[in-house]
Structures are given as structure tokens and as C-alpha cells.
């Protein structure tokens, strides 16, 4: 089991803005009125992108059976992409009665023998936590026997939300991997990317630009990640936390332990991408680097503007309503504004205090911050004469009823909308949606309807 004081500490993360204003922000889920994933899923999201490590789920079939091969996290790892494989002890009634430690031990042996991973992450789950399997001991012995890190991850689903699970995964990496190896070389511009999972290759939209500036990715947690690199992460000059608030504990603790400063950035849209590149350069504290960064930003923005030119005319005067969660409530809004659309409303239902603040900054005083988007969005579309609704599939019917174009915001899980080039993908998809007659066609009345 995860130690209780640790969980409490993670729930009251001091670097988390909502913990300053409200207490119990990450409180227990409400039976019968809860959506969203569990701590195990959070841990999985955070660590699975390590494609050179095997991810062994010690639990019944539900935990892995419904969740493997679900996220398109790109990797350049030349070996077999273990992220897209599923390993589970798939415990049975027998294991529940007699314990699953022996099975777990043999499962680790099987994986090391057949797949030669760089490390094995072992995830506890609700059932194996309940039956009290000593996963730490099994992992410790396996580490010695095989001479590679076998890392226990204590984030059984029932301890809390996805966010908490991500933090617990960060804890596992901090306590078991970071600082266990020295890098072959060091540069003054070594950074760690934290909370970037490279879904649909998002990070590859901007990492070549950082490299061009001479900024070196020492390690990532965990997009296109390598176990060998994350072990050296304590030697970085800067931690860069990308969009994901869930991992904020880790850079804060690394700052305390290793004196590494951290900054929080976003690579959605032109302005945020430029601001982030500049912020990284500035945080590394080299005047020449900052100058190079400014030049690169100017070059990239000019290039992008040229490519966006044809879209500008199309998007001019178009109004969009955005209904999504978390940091997307402002980051996508920012990207839409970069394309020349007016964002008349955004949902802040699932956003943190800081997200709400940023959303207000981007939308201005006129913009509507929707707290109950399900009820509000139809009315706002009418009032503002919006042309486009960006939301999850649940809102599709609102768009059809209002006869306006619809964009599924979850498309980004299939296609990168990140950084400068991703903005072009977004522009193309918005353009296609605005010109697609399907929403009006579907709204046709049947001949027998009055």
C-alpha cells in the first residue's frame, strides 16, 4: 500500500494553486456521481510512455485489459515499443485466496527473459493492495536478481483520482530512479521535460527547435522517454513542466533536493509556444541563448504566418464556443485566437483556479466562462451567433440542433495540435469542419415529421 502520510502530502501540494484558496480540492469521489479515471490510470498515463521499460500490472484483468494500447504516445526507441504491449498477472480467485507474490515474481522473470527491457515498472491495483501482496519485497529481490531497476508503483485505483496517481508515479520515479546514474556528459543547457507524454508526437513539434538552440533534453517524464536518461535527471539545469499540473510535486521536490529550478509552460498555439521557448531560454540564464531564441521565434512565426495566410480570411469574424476541461479551457482558446477566431465562451467547469484566471485573461471581459456548459452552450450559441462548437462527442447534438459546425476536441488524441506546426493541423481541421455540410444535412427533417 502507498503510505498514508505521503498521499496526504501529495494531495496538499503546496505548488498547486487551488490548495491555497480551497481546502480538500482533491477530495473523495462521490458514489453515483463520478466520472473520470482512477489513480492507477494516472500512473499508467505518466509512466507507460517509457517504451524501453515493461509495464507489468499486478491485478485482475480489468485494469490492463481495458486500457493497454490506448494512447498514441510516439517513441523513437529502436527496440520493441513496450508501451504498446500489455503485461498483467491477471490474478485469479486462487491468487486472491493464497496471495499473488509468487506469480508476480515469475511474471517479472518471464518478462526479463523474453523481452529484455531496460526496467520493469510493477503497478499495484486495488485487489492486490487489498490482499496485501508485498510488492516492494518482490521488486527489491527482482532488482538484485536481474540487475535492472524493477520499480514498484503504488497507485491502486481506489486511493484517488488520476491526478493523484500521476503524482504517485512521479514519487516512484523520484525515489527509485532519479539520481541513480550519472550522465555521460553535461551541458549548461540540460533540461528535463516533465508531464509531456508525446501523445500523437506532440513534443516532436517543438523539441527540434529547442535542440536547434542548443538546449539539450537530458531526460523526459516520459514522452519518448528512456529509463537510462531519467536516472540522470538530477543533473539537469532546469525542469520544464509541460501543461500537466498533475506532476507539479515532482519538480518542486527536485528543486528542494537537487536545487533545480522549474518553470511551467504550454505549447498550444503560437503565442504560448513562443512564450514557452523564450521562458526556457531565459530560465537557463544565458543572454546569447535568449537572443538566439528570439531570432528563432521570429523566424518560425513568420513562416507560420505565411502558411496561415489562406486560413486567416476564412476564420475572420468567425466565432467559436469551446467546451473542454482543465488547461485546455485556455490553451485551445489561445490557439483559436492565434488563428483569428473569436472565442466567445469557454467552459471552466473542470478547471482549476489558475486555469480560470488564465481563461479570463485570454477571453477578456466580454468572454463567457461557462460553469455549466451542458445547459449554457446552446443559449450562448444563439446569443452570440457562434459559427463553431468545439467540444466532446456529448455536445454533438447541440451543434446539429443549432446548425453550426462541430469539432471534436478529442481529435487531438489522434492528431497533434501542438506548437507551430500543430496549429496548422488545427487550422486545417477547423476549415474542414466549417465547410462540411454534414451538420446541416443531418438536421434535415424526415418527410413524415411535422
Amino acid at each position, binding site marked *: 500500500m502507498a503510505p498514508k502520510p505521503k498521499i496526504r502530502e501529495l494531495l496538499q501540494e503546496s505548488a498547486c494553486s487551488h490548495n491555497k484558496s480551497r481546502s480538500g480540492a482533491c477530495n*473523495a*469521489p*462521490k*458514489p*453515483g*456521481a*463520478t*466520472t*473520470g*479515471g*482512477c*489513480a*492507477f*490510470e494516472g500512473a499508467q498515463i505518466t509512466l507507460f510512455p517509457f517504451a524501453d521499460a515493461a509495464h507489468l500490472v499486478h*491485478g*485482475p*484483468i*480489468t*485494469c*490492463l*485489459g*481495458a*486500457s*493497454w*494500447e490506448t494512447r498514441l504516445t510516439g517513441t523513437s526507441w529502436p527496440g520493441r515499443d513496450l508501451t*504498446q*504491449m*500489455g*503485461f*498483467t*498477472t*491477471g*490474478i*485469479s*480467485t486462487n*491468487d*486472491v485466496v493464497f496471495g499473488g507474490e*509468487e*506469480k*508476480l*515474481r*515469475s*511474471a517479472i*522473470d*518471464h*518478462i526479463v527473459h*523474453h523481452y529484455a527491457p531496460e526496467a520493469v515498472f510493477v503497478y499495484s491495483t*486495488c*485487489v492486490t*493492495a*487489498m*490482499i496485501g501482496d508485498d510488492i516492494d519485497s518482490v521488486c527489491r529481490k527482482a532488482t538484485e536478481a536481474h540487475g535492472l531497476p524493477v520499480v514498484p508503483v503504488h497507485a*491502486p*485505483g*481506489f486511493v*484517488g483520482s488520476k491526478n493523484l496517481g500521476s503524482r504517485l508515479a512521479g514519487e516512484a520515479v523520484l525515489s527509485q530512479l532519479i539520481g541513480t546514474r550519472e550522465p555521460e556528459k553535461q551541458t549548461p543547457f540540460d533540461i528535463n521535460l516533465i508531464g509531456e507524454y508525446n501523445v500523437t508526437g506532440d513534443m516532436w513539434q517543438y523539441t527540434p527547435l529547442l535542440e536547434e538552440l542548443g538546449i539539450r533534453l537530458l531526460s523526459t517524464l516520459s514522452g519518448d522517454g528512456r529509463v537510462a536518461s531519467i536516472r540522470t535527471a538530477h543533473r539537469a539545469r532546469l525542469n520544464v513542466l509541460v501543461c500537466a499540473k498533475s506532476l507539479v510535486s515532482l519538480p518542486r521536490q527536485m528543486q528542494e533536493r537537487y536545487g533545480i529550478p522549474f518553470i511551467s509552460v504550454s505549447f498550444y498555439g503560437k503565442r504560448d509556444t513562443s512564450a514557452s521557448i523564450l521562458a526556457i531560454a531565459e530560465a537557463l540564464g544565458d543572454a546569447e541563448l535568449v537572443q538566439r531564441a528570439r531570432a528563432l521565434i521570429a523566424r518560425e512565426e513568420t513562416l507560420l504566418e505565411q502558411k496561415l495566410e489562406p486560413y486567416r480570411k476564412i476564420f475572420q469574424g468567425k466565432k467559436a464556443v469551446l467546451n473542454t476541461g482543465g488547461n485546455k479551457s485556455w490553451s485551445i482558446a489561445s490557439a483559436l485566437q492565434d488563428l483569428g477566431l473569436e472565442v466567445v465562451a469557454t467552459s471552466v467547469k473542470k478547471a482549476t483556479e489558475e486555469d480560470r484566471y488564465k481563461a479570463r485573461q485570454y477571453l477578456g471581459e466580454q468572454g463567457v466562462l461557462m460553469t455549466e456548459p451542458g445547459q449554457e452552450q446552446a443559449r450562448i450559441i444563439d446569443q452570440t451567433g457562434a459559427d463553431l462548437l468545439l467540444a466532446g*462527442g*456529448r*455536445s454533438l*447534438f447541440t451543434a446539429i440542433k443549432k446548425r453550426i459546425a462541430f469539432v471534436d476536441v478529442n481529435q487531438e488524441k489522434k492528431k497533434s495540435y501542438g506548437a507551430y506546426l500543430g496549429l496548422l493541423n488545427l487550422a486545417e481541421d477547423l476549415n474542414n469542419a466549417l465547410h462540411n455540410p454534414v451538420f446541416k444535412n443531418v438536421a434535415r427533417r424526415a418527410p413524415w415529421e411535422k
Partner: protein
Amino acid sequence: MGEVIRRIDKPLQVNPFRLSQPMGAALAFLGIDGCMPLMHGGMGCTSFTKVFLTRHFCEPIAIQTTAVTDVTAVLDGGDGSIVEAVKNITAKVTPSLIGLHSTGLTETKGDDLRGIASQIDYPMVYVHSPDYEGGLESGWGKTTCALIEQLVAPCQQGRRNKVVLLPHVSLTPIEVEKLKEFIAGFGFEVQALPDLSTSLDGHLGEKQSALSSGGITVEAIRELADAGLILSVGDSMRLSAEALLKKNATLCHRHFPHLQGLEATDQLAACLLEFSHRELPPAGVIRWRKRLQDTLLDCHFALGQTRVLLVGEPDFLSGAAQLLREAGSQIRLVLSSVDSPQLDRLTADTVLVGDLEEAEKRQQDFDLVVGNFHTEALARRFGKGLVLRGFPNWEVVGNQLRNDQLYEGGSAFLCEVANAAERSRHGH
């Protein structure tokens, strides 16, 4: 008949395709109109299931969780979280039924579902579905059984022209509809339990519902015993048929392991002719039988030289194997998610209960794979032909509209497999 390997000595599953019992239970409840499936477990069990089914059907999925935490797992006997969940659900919506089903977590702590359900004053059916045993089929089958045992009113006599269809979990919404129409064509009134054909068939509804929209009504379930004939399809549905027989001893029961291919469809047609006292089926059925005969001949050359790997749930495997065998396919390897009596009946060289790692080990034995989304990487890795079937099938739209059953669906399936086999032989 080849060898059947029911148990591999292996401490883990690598690239598993076995799915969980609670997921099967939830899906069965989604075949009931206005139902709210309530999974008793951690919120992750429900979230994974919801996302899984949403992606498979491209439809919003109604389901709620009792959101058991580490604290309530120890301190609560289950009643606290279930009572609160029911309160919170009914504060917002009014389900016709709440479908309470357990998970490994709550079975490990040993919650008394029956006791709790009896204390709650709301229409509710409960089912024990731990995910450390069984699978998708058994979760679906157990739930159907529970629905019958807990809802159906006992009856002394039945109406001869009413048929109860009990379809297994791998039948798509449109397949259930096709079976219902086929049976109705012989003059019967048909009720299917569960009935996904009107709930998850991918229809555009007027409004986003928080409950299942479509399916058999609770009222119709209560009156199921008032029938003349039960048709169970798939071995996982045998127990449900037996449960219904207990409600009305005068009912007749015919069991079909599957309804794919010429022979099985002939058997169903013969059965329906017998019970309807008719000489001939509808003209359309006669026509489709001829088309299937022709398709079998058209496909036999391509399929006769194709060595097939079948992956999936036992009731699905049984039908697909039979249909492909009728056209001469060589069924080299069958991988089943769980054990089942179906496995002994399969005409295949090797039948194995296992994971996709076993398929990799034996990849030289087959040219074409029929299986779920997870077999795509396998097929690509080894350059095999691929026909996607089963749960999950995430990257493909139209899963709910696909029909492989009876004369008509059999023709479509054979053509699809034959074309895929030819394409892969020519390296596309």
C-alpha cells in the same frame, strides 16, 4: 479435431484480449431501456469500461460507479456507498432499473449485494461479477440470468407465437436485429434479452440521455415467461434459458451454439418451421440461402488456401470457425479468451485459452487473422491478412452495423475474409 489446450503454464498474460466480467455485466444492462448500470468498485473500473465501450460503439455510454475508496473498502460493508450512489443517481435521473454489478475489489472484501439490494427501495437487479474470474461472456450471461431470476414473473402457460431470444455478448446490435427479424418472418412476436439492437445500434437520438436509450423494457422483461419458445444462442446463454424455464415449465427451449453458416441457419429455419407449423420460410430467406450457397462457392478458392487464426470470445469463435470451415478455410489456431464447452466442438488444429503472445510464437502457422483491435499490431508485425472482429474494435467505425449471421450475414463475412486473404497474398 485437433488439440484443445485449456491452460498454459504461464504466470502472466502478455498482450491479453480477455475482457472483464463486470464489463460484460454493464453491457448487458445497456440492453435494457432506461437502465443505469451501477458498477460496485473503484471509479477506475467504471471509467475504463465507459471509455472502452464509448470508443467501440462511438456512442456515449451510460454507467455509474459506487466509487469505493481505500477507506470505504475497509470501513464500509458496501451498503454505504451503494445507498449513496442510488441516492445521487436518482437525484438527477429516473432510471427504469439500476443494474448493480460487483468487481474484484468489492468481491474481495465480500460485500453482500443481495442483502443491500433488498434494503433499497428502488427497482434494482444485482449480479456478482468479480473480474478475477470469468470474462465478458460470463458477465453478460450471469446478468441475463439475474435479470430473469429477479424480474420475470412466474407463469403457468405461454403464448405459442411469442419467442424469447437470448443472444450472446458478441452479437452486434444489428445482428440481434437481424435475428429478431428472421424469427418474426415466421410469424412470431420476438423479445430479445438483453437487446442492444435498439440501444447501442448507433442511432441519432433527440437528446443526449444519461441513461441507456433503447433496449427491452423492464415491463417486457417481467412478462418474458409468457412465451412459447426460448431460443438461446451461444453456450454462455444456457444458464439464462434454464432460469427462464424455471419461471414457466411449459416453455419449449432450443439451444444453438451459434447461428453462422449454412448448416446452423438451416437448423434455425427448421426449428422455426416446426414451431410455426409453416411449410416455407419467407421468400427473402429462401433467396438469401441461395446467395450464401453461391458465395460459399465463389469464396472457396481463396479461403481453401488460407490458414486462419481466430481470436475472441468462445461463442463468437464457434460461429466464425464453422462458417469459414464451410468454405474450406484451414483453421490452424483458435485463441479463446476463456474456457468454454464450445472449444471441444471447434474444427481447428489447435485451440488454446491464452493471450496474443501465444499467437506470436505460432505466427508461422497462419496467413490471416480474424480478431479484435489488438490483433492489428500482430498482423502488421508479421505481414498477415486481417479481418477485425470482436471487442474492442476501436479504430473502425460501424461495428454496431456489421452482420455476419444467418444466410445474409454469412455471405458478407465470407466475401470480406476472402478479399482480405487475397489482398494479403498480393502483399497489400
